[in-house]
């Protein structure tokens, strides 16, 4: 009843190829954007902005990058932590080496650097597939973290090996890095940045390149036979994915934590992003966001829940409960919908089309 496109006629190719062709979708998106841009900074406390929304956006970007590689191109990668470290350290060297460079340019250049590194570590994908490729990308993870740990040049010879983000402004007077930044400014900067990059990602996966990736994922031998070059497809997937993940790493170090050591990008980080992509939904842009929200925010919610409900439980019990409930929810969601939260959303939309009828 509500979600029908009856009466909506497209009169141009552009309108027909829009990402959100249905008017109801566009209205919902507009409302959502208004809430996100105007409502959240006005109503949310600094705690929410700094520790809930900022890490959510950063990890959504990382999940987006990994989804392009694993979800759309089918190349399983466990090197996400290493690529995030690349992004963080490249942007640190650029920001400290070229202080006049605008911070957005620093992030983009760091992303390009990470893309180059990603292409290098993606070369084994031309010969090996599946779990074996995962092991090869594991080499990327350990090697990159080792490089940043071992060579003091990366940390400007600091005695402890910790890099600290220098304060930078996106527009004169609006600092986004360093603790001096206003949380609302950081949040809006990240929102715009991630929205633009998500739009680019969505268009990439809808385009010819995206279709070559999906062809490689579905049946790479058949793809090669019909003329798709596996070299270009796989390496471009690695490049674009590492670009996104590198920028996410740079944002994590600069905008979220402010200071980071190479140890923060261990294998756990790679697994965390992989779980976001799996739970959110492989091969779905929305899935990256849903998965990031699930993995990043749910533990915080579970941790805070007892005090919000007014229960006085010791912190150990809360920590144990959090693990148990989180694990149980992961198992539950994967049993109920193995294709992830994005598929649940899709099913919801399909049901909404028929509402109020059940079928």
């Amino acid at each position: 009843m509500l979600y029908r496109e009856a009466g909506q006629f497209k009169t141009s190719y552009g309108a027909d190829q829009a990402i959100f062709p249905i008017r109801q979708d566009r209205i919902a998106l507009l409302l959502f954007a208004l809430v996100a841009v105007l409502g959240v900074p006005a109503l949310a406390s600094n705690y929410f902005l700094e520790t809930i929304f900022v890490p959510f956006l950063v990890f959504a970007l990382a999940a987006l990058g990994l989804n392009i590689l694993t979800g759309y191109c089918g190349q399983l990668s466990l090197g996400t932590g290493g690529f995030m470290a690349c992004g963080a350290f490249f942007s640190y060297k650029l920001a400290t080496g070229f202080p006049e460079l605008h911070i957005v340019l620093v992030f983009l250049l760091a992303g390009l650097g990470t893309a180059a590194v990603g292409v290098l570590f993606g070369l084994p994908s031309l010969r090996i597939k599946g779990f074996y490729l995962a092991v090869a990308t594991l080499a990327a993870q350990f090697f990159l973290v080792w490089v940043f740990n071992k060579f003091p040049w990366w940390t400007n010879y600091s005695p402890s090996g910790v890099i600290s983000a220098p304060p930078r402004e996106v527009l004169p007077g609006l600092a986004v890095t360093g603790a001096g930044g206003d949380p609302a400014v950081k949040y809006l900067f990240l929102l715009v940045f991630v929205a633009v990059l998500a739009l680019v990602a969505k268009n990439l996966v809808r385009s010819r390149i995206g279709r070559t990736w999906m062809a490689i994922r579905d049946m790479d031998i058949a793809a090669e036979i019909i003329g798709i070059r596996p070299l270009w497809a796989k390496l471009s997937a690695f490049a674009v994915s590492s670009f996104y993940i590198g920028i996410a790493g740079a944002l994590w170090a600069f905008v979220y934590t402010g200071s980071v050591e190479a140890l923060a990008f261990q294998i756990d980080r790679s697994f965390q992003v992989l779980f976001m992509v799996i739970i959110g939904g492989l091969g779905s842009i929305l899935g990256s966001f849903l998965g990031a929200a699930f993995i990043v925010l749910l533990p915080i919610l579970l941790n805070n829940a007892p005090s919000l409900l007014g229960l006085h439980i010791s912190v150990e019990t809360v920590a144990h409960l959090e693990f148990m409930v989180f694990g149980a929810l992961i198992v539950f969601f994967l049993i109920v919908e193995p294709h992830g939260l994005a598929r649940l959303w899709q099913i919801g939309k399909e049901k909404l089309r028929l509402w109020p009828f059940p079928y």
Partner: protein
Amino acid sequence: MTFKRIGLAAAAAVVLAGSFAAAGPVAAQEQFVPLLVYRTGPYAPSGIPLADGFNDFMQLINLRDGGVNGVKFAWEECETQYNNDRGVECYERLKAKGEAGASVVNPYSTGITYALIERATNDKVPVLSMGYGRADASDGTVFPYVFTMPITYWAGADVMVQYAKKESGGSLEGKKIALVYHDSAYGKEPIATLERLAKEEGFQFSTYPVAHPGLEQKATWLQIGRQLRPDWVFMWGWGVMNSTAIKEAAAVGFPMEKFVGIWWSGAEADVTPAGDAAKGYKSLNITGVGTSAPIFKDIEKMHADGKGVADKANIGTVLYNRALVNAFYYTEAIRIAQGEFGKKPLTGEQVQWGMDRLDITQEMIDKAGMTGLMSPVKITCADHEGGGSAVVQQWDGTKWAAITDFIAPRRDALRPAYEASAAQYAKEKGIEPRSCS
């Protein structure tokens, strides 16, 4: 659906079966202290006595003295699991609680400390990183809100070298010293200082990084024990790396008397897993060990009344005592600040004022019943380290015992090093160092 009902019942049972926290909602006239603890996770054996020490000391001050000049402590624990992200989230959650906000934050993790330095400085909450964190934060002009008393890692390295020198008959010329360190910010801290001392004292210095978490040390110790055969091995380890190192050292037959760990490698949790092999192992300590100090009579009485929080077995252990001293530092800082700002709950900025003027003499230590637990400390606006010392203790198989007095590090060379490193940080961050006149 029975599945749902079983799940709900199980969750309710766990919630009811769990123990209840000591802290409740914060009432008026209470000084709030956020406690970032790790009672779960891989570092729990170290985190639990630390957390208990804080709880017990503040509980003692509240019950025995009625608080600091009538202002009682209120505290809330937050589980960080030794994870940097969680530490930041816990800090953000708790920093505004209480009448005047958080008084002080003690992260007990070098990683979390680094992550919190900027935020806490911005929020005007002092960070008390007692014997950990960044050593160059001892320069109070660049780090007004970070306190590293009583001693930093660089000074600790100096103390170790002094001890080794004394034990080697007064000279280290030609001797070999190896450093086994956790390959992280924490472990790398002493390297520059030890390299400088190697040049000055004439010993040969080699470094052996151990990748986190430190379970893979066989190759390292084979190299040390068979190839290098150093005269002394210093260790900067944490968590399971410590006990693994001791086991491996024993396996290659390295003499335990020549093996000295830093104060985070010298707790009961580090030596008990190694069993008999750990006898004779030495470490530094910045606080006294054991229950001989007079304050323990009060603590034991509090436990007898049922008001204590700690597990009885943990009282008097290395990390429990360290937390007692840590709590004592900020209690005295609050006392000093109350003299200036009035006997009411103080903001973080006011507590920082008190910390800048912290002067703990031996008489104050004796009066508080902490004799033997700590060395005197004097903080100034520019010196946030306080001139404290460290003692060398040895494990005899059942307990730790101090084998030297408090050894003072030679700070003439250390102070310029702190200032140079802090100046580089200030330049990178665009911080204007405050003037201390």
